[in-house]
């Protein structure tokens, strides 16, 4: 691994910034002013300087060609540490000490992926998850629109009326707090290219998206809803216990939140059915 011109190790120019998504703060320690600027641009209202964090990463920047770019994402637990690797980053952190290290080139995509994976690991322990879904708050309630690529997540987000607050058009953040499921805004943007608003609301429904000549909502039975939800939950780790936790989380979620299929024609009338 080739370090960049910025050497490892903390010095007086190091700065901790905290990126808080879903109410879970993750600190990043870096001495690179350019990288800090990049983080500010990327995470905007989700970012602050200093303060408490649930996990703290030291970020060491390396040259862009330090890794094999063809390497797929891999996440595993070894010797008490989570290891996160892909063709553009290497990271590890300890669930016990809550400290870790990231090696990556100075680009926003790598840190974005490390944050997403870390959040999936943190959420799995508490019944939450990240879902391939756009989401929005309307009349104080959150609605999730789930599907894989081309299902219409961004289309639904683009069609949202003015009284809807967009949480994300890409990855919805679901937490269980006091037996209630909440959706949070995330900076994880899809084709829309805009971060969601940093707000949260109780989840009223999940809509599984299907494009259609007409708008129609049909209830999805619990087992089928769980199967389809599991297909859309972001999950990277090769770890049997974590798979079990995610499965239980999906089952519990479906027992508490109604899941529908939303067959929709892509124009603004679809929102007449929502909220």
């Amino acid at each position: 691994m080739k370090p960049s011109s910025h050497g490892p190790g903390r010095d007086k120019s190091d700065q901790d910034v905290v990126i808080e998504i879903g109410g879970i703060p993750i600190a990043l320690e870096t001495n690179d002013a350019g990288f800090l600027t990049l983080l500010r641009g990327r995470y905007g209202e989700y970012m602050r300087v200093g303060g408490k964090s649930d996990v703290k990463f030291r970020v060491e920047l390396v040259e862009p060609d330090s890794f094999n770019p063809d390497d797929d994402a891999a996440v595993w637990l070894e010797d008490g540490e989570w290891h996160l690797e892909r063709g553009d980053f290497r990271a590890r952190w300890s669930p016990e000490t809550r400290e870790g290290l990231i090696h990556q080139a100075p680009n926003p995509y790598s840190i974005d992926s490390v944050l997403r994976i870390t959040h999936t690991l943190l959420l799995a322990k508490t019944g939450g998850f990240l879902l391939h879904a756009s989401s929005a708050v309307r009349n104080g309630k959150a609605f999730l629109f789930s599907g894989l690529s081309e299902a219409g997540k961004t289309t639904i987000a683009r069609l949202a009326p003015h009284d809807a607050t967009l949480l994300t058009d890409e990855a919805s953040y679901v937490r269980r707090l006091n037996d209630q499921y909440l959706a949070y805004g995330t900076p994880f943007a899809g084709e829309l290219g805009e971060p969601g608003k940093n707000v949260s609301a109780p989840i009223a429904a999940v809509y599984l998206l299907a494009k259609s000549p007409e708008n129609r909502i049909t209830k999805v039975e619990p087992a089928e809803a769980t199967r389809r939800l599991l297909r859309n939950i972001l999950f990277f780790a090769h770890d049997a216990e974590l798979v079990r936790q995610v499965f239980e989380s999906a089952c519990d979620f479906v027992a508490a939140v109604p899941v529908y299929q939303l067959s929709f024609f892509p124009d603004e009338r679809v929102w007449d059915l929502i909220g």
Partner: protein
Amino acid sequence: MPQSEKYLTKSKTVAARVLGDEVIIMSTADSTIFMLNPTGTVIWQAADGNTPLSRIIVEKLCEQFDVPVEQAATDAEDFVAEMAAHGVLVVSEEPISR
């Protein structure tokens, strides 16, 4: 020669939940998902390691679905073989203690 008995138990490498009248099962090894129909659900729920498959067929399947023993036995054998091949059910000729 009489056919030996089969005893079934749920694999420890899967997570499962009864939802409505269906069971959804997920392999914790490779995340494969299985959805059981009502017949499969009855067999799954009865797979306690001590009840022989022949008794599950007669006392559960024939009773609940009003089908002849031969047909229920064929369906059950096929289902058990498939689930065992996927590592969802563990099958033994002896009772299985957990």
